[in-house]
């Protein structure tokens, strides 16, 4: 079901002003605390991101990230606790190792690695949540949309 898309001046297709679509997998500890801090301050953020909370960032498999992209999402952020502060006995260390592989892997399947962000920080650093989201969005704006070329699989498979 193709929506009526209009191209804005940045070359990013947006629907009625909706900014790039981003999924944020946030651990319920540092990730969400940071997001909550931004909320409490009424920090104004781009409205195109949706947060999926998980107990620990280690729950997120590479699969979920790739499927998110293939379903038409423009960017994925995974937020976990500071390496050294994961309450699940440093499970986030393994997440770090595992998901870092996504950066080169995504490139091999035609997805710019700048569309993926893996960030570990303390709750207070995610008080910089707003900076993180804003910078990520700025990065996305500079990229061509995912299905900009007719040679892209996505436009044919009708995922968007």
């Amino acid at each position, binding site marked *: 079901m193709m929506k009526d898309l209009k191209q804005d001046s940045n070359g990013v297709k947006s629907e009625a002003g909706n900014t790039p679509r981003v999924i944020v997998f946030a651990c319920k*500890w540092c990730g969400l605390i940071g997001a*909550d*801090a931004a909320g409490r301050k009424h920090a104004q953020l781009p409205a195109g991101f949706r947060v999926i909370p998980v107990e620990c960032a280690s729950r997120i498999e590479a699969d979920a990230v790739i499927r998110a992209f293939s379903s038409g999402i423009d960017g994925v952020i995974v937020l976990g*606790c500071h390496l*050294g*502060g994961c309450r699940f006995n440093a499970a986030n260390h393994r997440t770090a190792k595992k998901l870092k592989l996504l950066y080169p892997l995504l490139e091999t399947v035609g997805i710019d690695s700048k569309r993926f962000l893996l960030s570990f920080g*303390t*709750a*207070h650093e995610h008080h*910089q949540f707003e900076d993180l989201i804003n910078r990520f969005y700025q990065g996305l704006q500079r990229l061509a949309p995912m299905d900009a070329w007719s040679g892209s699989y996505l436009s044919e498979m009708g995922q968007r």
Partner: protein
Amino acid sequence: MLKKHADKKPVLIVGAGVAGITAALDLARTGRKVHLVERGPVPGGQVSNLDKLYPTDHCAFCPLWTEIQACIFHPLINIHTLSYIVTVSGDDAGYQVIIGENPHLINESRCILCGRCVPKCGVDAIRLMGEHCYPASYYIDLDRCTRCGDCVDICPTRAIDITRTNSTKVLSVSDIIWATGFQDVDISALEEYGYKTHPDIMTSLEFEDWTAEAGVNQGRIMKKHDKLPPQNIAFIQCAGARDRRLFPYCSAVCCMHALKQAQWVKRRSPDIECVIFYTDMRTEGRHYYEYYQREIEGSAIRLIRGRPGLIFPLPHADGIAVKYEDTIIQRQEIRKFDMVVLNGALRPSLAGDDTLVYKPPLDEEGLVDLRLGATKSCGFCREPVDVETSVIQASSAALLTCMGGPDDGR
């Protein structure tokens, strides 16, 4: 056995810092009722105000938050904030304690954080206690509030009641555990440190606040007087501690605290030179030496052994002079530093607070007097210790209330 225990009178714990919270949860989980009396508006104590903790380099909020949450939601723990002890009477067989409560003008259980009351206040008395206070609620500073009542009607849940006044409660308890911790100290009486002679000479707790991620500068390191980044920072250890004039004891936490602060400065701004002037680098705790090695070797923090003799603001220039003896080159030196952090003097809260109506017997150093066997205490109010040791002592003190006193001459 277990039934008998739960039927005992409640335990009173004074202070809801890391030690008090631990003791409260331990006891409540055995079925014992607990009264947790805290003089501040929220539980958490000094540790919750810290930016980062050693040796995890993690913020203090996360580990503490789940414990505070568990306390708040535990049916057997009664938390009395803005409260203090008025009188204590009785003995080992049982105490009658009168606690005074300063009023929470905003009912925390009704505050939905909408913040509409804040702009209504003409004297800026309403705010959130810290970025992530827990429980989440706005608070009215009793020192500033004029009880004008302008904020009352705007509150959608009718959470504000400015007519509330101090109240007292009588508690009948079996034991009292003191867990009142420490507070920062004004060491301007020790003139050689130059405290208060320059805005950029501050105590380590003030520096922690100033450079906190969640603080006013969002983690940026800058001088207080001109808001520019400093070129160098001097950390002065044992300032006021191990000093017969003020505190003969060693505060136990400052060496690691300085290492942690210095390495976070380097992490955020690698170009800032950090020098730690120390007497003994006390890294005897669990994995502390590894932390020390990693940070000293990794980030080029310089250590100079020696307590500076004099610290003063430069009379005709921007900066602070630190006069010390460099034992490596065997010479007196004066160096200019942009910021000076004084680490050392920490006072047990019981000794430092003149407004306290009741205190247990304290020894010459202001610590709970251990010679009086019956007084149970844990954490810094008992002896200067770090977080892990405070928490261990808290569990031990909790155990003693379950047994009605030690029997092995401890």
